[in-house]
Structures are given as structure tokens and as C-alpha cells.
């Protein structure tokens, strides 16, 4: 539910990217790029494609001061809040919860669906 292992994977990867960025005095996006560079060569192109795809959303979250790994994965639609399920979060909740924070970046249903299809297309 709520994205299951995809959500868990996203949360871990975004956490690492954010922390790596901070450790190296870089942005989250640069942290992502560094993380891609740590991978074996054949794994780097899909990783970089992923980073390029998520960069605008991540940047917007940072600009709006909503960024946490949990919120980022909600905004990327890799984590969801399924009907009747609680919000799943690894870090303490901020603002008015995950779904609310994500909705500030993806305010309309059309925007959410667009993001959803973008992520599914990436596979």
C-alpha cells in the first residue's frame, strides 16, 4: 500500500542524495548526481535520466521550503496515501502532513497525473 517498496526505495535514495549534498556543501540535485557517479558505469545513464526528470520537482520543493524525503517522494507520486491508509513517513511530519505538502507543488489532479505518468514512463 501507499507505494510499498517503490516508496521505500524512493525515500532511501532521496535521503541519501540530500545527505550527500549536505556533506559536500552541495544542493540536493548535486547530491543526486554524485550518487549516480558512485554507481557502476552501466547503471549511470538511467540514474542520470531519473535525476533529470525529478530535478524540477525537487527544486520546487526546496524553493517552497517543503522539502523532506517523505514529501519529495509524495510529490514524485512514488509514495501515495491510499484510501483508508495512514500517511507513511520515515521522518517527522512537517507542515500539515505529506499529502498537503505535496499538493502545494502539484495543486491539481491533472498535475499529479502528469507527474504520475512521467514517473511510470521512466519505469
Amino acid at each position: 500500500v501507499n507505494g510499498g517498496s517503490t516508496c521505500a526505495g524512493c525515500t532511501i535514495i532521496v535521503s541519501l542524495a540530500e545527505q550527500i549534498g549536505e556533506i559536500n556543501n552541495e544542493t540536493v540535485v548535486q547530491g543526486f548526481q554524485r550518487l549516480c557517479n558512485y554507481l557502476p558505469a552501466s547503471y549511470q545513464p538511467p540514474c542520470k535520466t531519473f535525476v533529470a526528470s525529478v530535478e524540477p520537482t525537487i527544486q520546487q520543493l526546496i524553493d517552497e521550503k517543503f522539502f523532506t524525503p517523505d514529501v519529495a517522494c509524495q510529490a514524485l507520486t512514488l509514495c501515495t496515501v491510499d484510501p483508508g491508509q495512514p500517511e507513511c513517513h520515515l521522518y517527522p511530519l512537517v507542515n500539515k502532513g505529506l499529502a498537503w505538502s505535496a499538493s502545494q507543488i502539484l495543486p491539481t489532479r491533472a498535475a499529479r497525473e502528469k507527474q504520475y505518468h512521467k514517473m511510470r514512463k521512466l519505469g
Partner: protein
Amino acid sequence: SDICDGFPILKGICQFVYQRLDDHEPLVDADGDRFSIIETLRGTHFRGRDCDDVDSSVHPGKRAIDGDRHRDSNCNGIYGVDPKTGKTYEELLCDGTGQLGVILLGDSAGAHFHIPENWVSAPDISLGAFEILPDVLADEFDWPHLSSMTGYINSSLVKWPTDSAYYRMWQMNHCNHRDYQNLGVNGARSSSMNGTIQYSMSRDQKMDHPALVIYSLIGNDVCNGHPDTIAHMTTPEEMRANFHSTLKFLDTKLPKGSHVIATSMADGRILYDTLHDKIHPLGNWRQDVTYSDLYEFLNCLQISPCMGWMSSNETLRNLTSQRAANLSRALEMEVGAYKSTNFDLHYEVFDITKVLKKWVKEGGHAKDLIEPVDGFHPSQKQTSEMSCLVLQTTQQLANFLSAKKFWEDLDKTFPNGIVKMNPHNNQIRELFGNQGGY
């Protein structure tokens, strides 16, 4: 999968690959004898190396054909004829020494599931950290070559000597070289094991040597990620019936003189008790993620490997342990009742809690014996503060200690399961060196 669907000519190949992977058989196995020549994809990390992958009559564990006069039919590195006596080396060095293979029917703990800690700890990630990722994926995140039952290599990843049931078998008798099969599968439980052994185990009643089979499913019959976790646990009746089916199958496959040992299930309460307030590697940078946080997150997503034990609900943890104890009792009862034709049968209480208590008593930290990333499996990871202690004393971490304890208990209660020392081991080393390695 897109390629498979898009090109009809590839469909058959894809189905073959999927089937092999589903059945936990070696993917690269030209002769279909379930032994491989490559390390990963259920290859030599899981089973002894095949020394001829186009001839199914040649594989580890086989009784030597014509004394292996001309070639090594059982892949133990011993073949040829002694020029002085005219006898084959198999006759001189191995005959009558009680050769015995090791087969593990196990779960992720038996296959040694492990995710390197520096993969999820930001301060520790560096260039090259993920170099081994392709191999780790191909081995399903299992490291059976470092496991307590079939481990055989000294790795730069660990700083203590290898110890395992197979390794001891080899130390006692070098004729057992490469005769191991780790059929550990992540998530395996008593019901799935009945399918796994049918497709994955290799033993011929007439043509192979007897084996020591270790049935060790320590948690998945009570572990699942469902919110109503108890409803999805195996019942004692099901456990006994499943185990009975496994034994019946083994009776049709194992050569006479084999041994089967069923180990008890674990008491996983030790996981939460030990780790709940400790920092998970993902929280190393800011000290902000505890194991309790991780457990709750996985439970919320319903992907926890074990909601019963990885839970803040103490009543649930106790109920899970109670069920595990009942399932262990069911196994023990079946061991007492089953009448086998080709093997003797033994029940072994294999309690990681005792190992852990001993480790702590000797000055170790309990958390070091649990896999740091998943907070669930027994570890073989050595922390830096432990390295000196480990090097200076005989203390080793969970898998190593488990193998040691397993062996000691076995020696006391079930001496038939242990091979006798082969007096020709030195000669084998002199003549055949590393016996072709692994």
C-alpha cells in the same frame, strides 16, 4: 520484459530464464545438472563448481566413476592413478573416509542476506562503493559463500576466518571439496520449501555420496508484512504437514547413510529489544532515524519482512515468539515420529539468543550481531571498534559463532552427522594443491 514481449523469437528464451530464476536453479548450467561454472545467478556462490558443464554425469558430490582414473567426475580436484601402486587416488585417498556433502534447505538467514552498510550511510558512501552492485543483485542480496552453513571463502569484507558446516566438512575430509548446496531462498517458509527442493536440489540416491541436510527455516513461517500478521502465520499443523512432505521427498532423493537435521525457529524478540532505540545507518549523518522509525515506516507500507517482531507492540512480539515456539515444537514432534528409510533424523535447538548472550558476556555489543541495514538478519559485519577484539581473541560475529555453536552442539548430540578426519588430507594437499579452488 519489453524486449521479451516485443520480439517473439526471444519469448522462449525469456520464459526459460524466468523459469530458472523462479526455481532457484543456476542460470548458467549447460548440462542441466544444477551445478554451474559461474559464481553468481545461483552459481558457485550457492553450489560447488561444476568441473564439466556439458556432461551432466560430472558434478560435485558424485561417487567417482572408475575411481576418477582419467578425469575428475566429482569435481573434488582428486583424480588420476598413483604410479607406485597403480591404484586410483580416489581409492587411496577417499574410499572409506565417509564422504558427506552439505545441503542447506533454508531462508535468507541461511543464505546470509546482507546489504552493505555503506550503501545507506551517507558519510560512508564513496566512489566505488557500488562496484559490487551487479554481483549482489545477481545473488539476490545473498552471500552464501560467507554463510554459516556453506561459507567457504575468506573475504576482504570480513576480517575473521571463514567457518561453516561445509568448511568444517572440508577441513575434516578434503574429499568433500565442493560438495555443498545452499538452497536458501529469501522469504522461504515450510510450504515454499516443498517446491524449492523439487526443482533446486541435486542428489542422486544411487550415484551420489550421502549428505548432511540442514533444514533451517528460522522465521518466515511467522514473519510477513500483513497488518493482520497472525492470520498469515503458519499453524503448527501446517508446519508439521509441510515438514512431513519435505522429509518424504528427501527420502526419495538422499542416498542411504545421509543425515537430516531440523533446527528450531528463532526468537526474534531480540531484534526489537536490541535495536529499537539505536540509530539506523540511514540516520548516521544527522542521528535522526532509529530502527523503530524504520520498522514503523516498513509496517505502514506493509512491506516489513516481519511485522510480528519488528513492531513496537510488545504483545504482538510475544505472540509471534509464542507461535514460533509452537512451530518449533511441531518440527520436533515430526522428527520424533517420522520413519525414514535413507537417513537418520535429528532436531537441533539452534538459538541465536544464546549466541548473542555469550557474545555480550564476552564484551561485545548485541547490535553487532544483527544486520545493520535491515535490522532483521544475523550479521557477519564487523564494526571498527570490534576489529581488534575479534583479531585478538577467538570471538567472532553471528554467523561464525553460529557455525561454531552448531558444530559443538552437533558433536555432543549427533556425532553421526560429523565426518571423521581423513588421514590423507596432507597428501591430498601435497598432490592436488587447492583442488581447483571454488
